[in-house]
């Protein structure tokens, strides 16, 4: 414990306490020691002052009303106002699941959950300063931290394991989708076409469903590419190489413009679905390459040992190779999930109303907010930042745990 505050004397090898440094000696040593360091410090400080000079007047005079009055479009798009309660109820399992994940995986997920709680609390606080936010939204953001904590309490119980969290997440996700989509015209929950879904809701839904779909496809494609059956190998190679080479944006336009030409004339495919497929195709190709790296890292001795035990080929893959390969690639997998989350923003370019698309529509569509683009885009960037930062904290947590396991 105390060793951290001691330094080893080079001559005697004894431990002695570090001398207290005054700020001046510290600054001299760290900021001004060779002459060029002093120059760098001055340049850095000037740069910081320059940035502050630009941002502070902007932040003081910012028209945040552009964000607050349009918060409904940013959060749920054009989802019918009468039906918004369905979004609130349908999405409520998400913070709960995040909480259980925190309970089950512990420190790895802690930062993510804490960030979500802080963001929700800040939203509620900021809503106190203006009355433009619907009480329903405020209520939802006020309740969600408790849902996270409730999930944490559940996740801490011994009989809840990773498997329960994953299955629960998947089932709740399906339920949410059905809940948002609705049923017939006359039912209590009338049908809402995906064209009216939007905002952060769509961003998060696409990211989550994408995550759930991309990993299995990636695993299948990686296995096919590694297999010694030439047809599977060639098919997987074509899939991976073509999709990896194509920019997502081109794939997106390809999906929306060209793919209807390949479908029977009677069908009009859902645009959101097509955009989703484009994102999945692109990311699953990258995911396959990540997992292939993991498959190659499994030592040959493992496979030979499993074969010597008399295991079938498929058994060797499923029980011996794949678990080790996936464990080795978890950081890359989480990294790919982060990329997928960021990739969802591209759908704004084909006129879909995700978070970025909603912002775009607000600025271009309403004269009052034509000059509010910095505020709106800063808000959007901040929302993306919160989620991505949370996810990358999970990734660092995983890496830390893996390193601890390797020692």
């Amino acid at each position, binding site marked *: 414990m105390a060793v951290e505050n001691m330094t080893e004397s080079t001559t005697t090898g004894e431990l002695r306490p570090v001398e207290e440094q005054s700020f001046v000696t510290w600054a001299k040593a*760290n*900021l001004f020691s060779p002459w060029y*360091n002093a120059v*760098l*410090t001055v*340049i*850095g*400080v000037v*740069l*910081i002052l320059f940035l502050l000079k630009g941002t502070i007047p902007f932040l003081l005079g910012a028209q945040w009303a552009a964000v607050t009055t349009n918060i409904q479009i940013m959060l749920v798009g054009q989802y019918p106002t009468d039906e918004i309660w369905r979004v609130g109820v349908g999405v409520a399992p998400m913070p709960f699941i995040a909480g259980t994940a925190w309970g089950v995986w512990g420190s790895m997920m802690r930062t993510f959950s804490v960030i979500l709680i802080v963001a929700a609390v800040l939203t509620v606080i900021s809503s106190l300063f203006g009355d433009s936010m619907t009480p329903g939204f405020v209520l939802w953001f006020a309740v969600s931290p408790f849902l996270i904590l409730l999930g944490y309490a559940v996740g801490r119980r011994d009989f809840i394991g990773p498997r329960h969290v994953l299955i629960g997440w998947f089932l709740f996700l399906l339920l949410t989708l059905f809940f948002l989509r609705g049923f017939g015209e006359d039912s209590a929950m009338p049908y809402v076409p995906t064209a009216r879904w939007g905002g952060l809701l769509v961003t998060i839904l696409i990211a989550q469903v994408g995550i759930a779909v991309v990993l299995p496809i990636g695993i299948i494609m990686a296995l096919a590419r590694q297999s010694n*059956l*030439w*047809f*599977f190998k060639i*098919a997987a190679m074509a899939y991976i*190489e*073509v999709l*990896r*080479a*194509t*920019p*997502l*944006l*081109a794939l997106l*336009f*390809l999906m929306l*413009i*060209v793919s209807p*030409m*390949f*479908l*029977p*004339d009677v069908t009009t495919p859902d645009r959101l679905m097509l955009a989703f497929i484009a994102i999945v195709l692109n990311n699953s190709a990258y995911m396959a390459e990540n997992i292939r790296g993991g498959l190659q890292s499994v030592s040959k001795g493992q496979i030979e040992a499993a074969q010597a035990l008399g295991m079938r080929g498929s058994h060797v893959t499923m029980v011996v190779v794949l678990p080790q390969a996936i464990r080795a690639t978890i950081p890359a997998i989480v990294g790919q999930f982060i990329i997928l989350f*960021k*990739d*969802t*923003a*591209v759908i*704004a*370019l084909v006129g879909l109303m995700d978070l*970025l698309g909603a*912002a*775009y529509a607000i*600025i271009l569509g309403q004269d009052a907010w034509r*000059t509010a*683009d*910095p505020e709106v*885009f*800063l808000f*959007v*960037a901040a929302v*993306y*930042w919160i989620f*991505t*930062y949370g996810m*990358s904290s999970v990734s660092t947590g995983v890496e830390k745990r893996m390193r601890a396991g390797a020692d």
Partner: protein
Amino acid sequence: MSSRPPLKLLNYHGVPIWRNVVFIRLVMQALAALFVISIIWLLATNLMNNAEQRGLNLSFKLLSTNAGFDVPYSLIPFDSSKSILYAFFAGVANTLRLVGIAIFTTTILGVLIGLAQLSSNFVISGLGRVYVQTLRNIPLITFAFFLFFGLLRGLPKTSEAWHMPGIGVMSNRGIYLTSVDESSSLVLWLIIVALGIVAAYLLNRMFLKNQGELKLFGIRLNRGFTPIVLLLLVAAIGWIAQPQAPFVFDQPELKGTNFVGGMKLTTEFFAILTALTVYIASYVAEIVRGSVQSVPKGQVEAAEALGLNYWQVTLNVVLPQAARIAVLPMIGQWVNLTKGSALAIVVGYAEVFVVARTAIEKTGMALQIFVMVIAFYMIMGAFFSLLGNWYNRKVQFDGR
């Protein structure tokens, strides 16, 4: 008198056919192939039906018909009477121009920020870290929107253009950089510089002969600096001694409502270049930081134990090893940059994807044009991966 059981059609070497590995593999592949082929066949039939109903022509020969649209900016001369294929290649040229310049600027900015992150000076390293953490955690397109809208509104009129002394001017009509043109005395100056290089080389040879010890008027000459100083001196004399400088700096000047002279970058080009450079530099910075930190500490300590000073350790021990780790991911970022250039569609810089979009809108040949676009990006990707493989083979240790 074989010990094997007799061959039967469905019973090879006594193994029933449904357990025969060769047979199972064959059947599995045949089924998969059948499945894939039938899907492709289904899609192709749909395509044929749709094409017939809507009167679409799916022939690639159509690409040689007149474009009938204009490409706003083109490196290679283009007008609307040229073919669609030609328009496509005008777009390709524009993409290559953008990507070529962006690779250069991104790598420089990224390496600078990566090194800043590693600095022991905490003001500098803090700035570097804030830069990287801010940009890496937002989508490129969100950043691009923020930047494009900001530039669109923020750039001043030509009469109030921002003047950057020595560099150029910025206004909403475009960015005019001071350009460097050759003058009539350039050839002579280059010859003088070449002579300087020869002289520096000979001086270096003399140093080698005398084991690094040379004296001029009793003063010991520095082995590293003297040849460089000699070269610079010769170049400077050659510059000054001639009546006309070898380079002419062409400053943009306001004439009427617009600027004349200098090198013009359109606002669109500037916007997409800035967006790609600033954003992808944050990824390059992380690669630089990671690769430098991954050089084992023992290497640095061993070099210090041999008596090398800080710069010798950095330049001769750390950087070569870090570069070997960094180059492949760096090329990966160049690929990302190439694909990110499709974002130019937001500002309308006429790169290949924008030209393709225009062509599709004007001619309706979506399928043919998309095939071309994907082929282009695949060729670019193949080029970069060849580059990476070549480098990898070059730097790989033997016996690894």
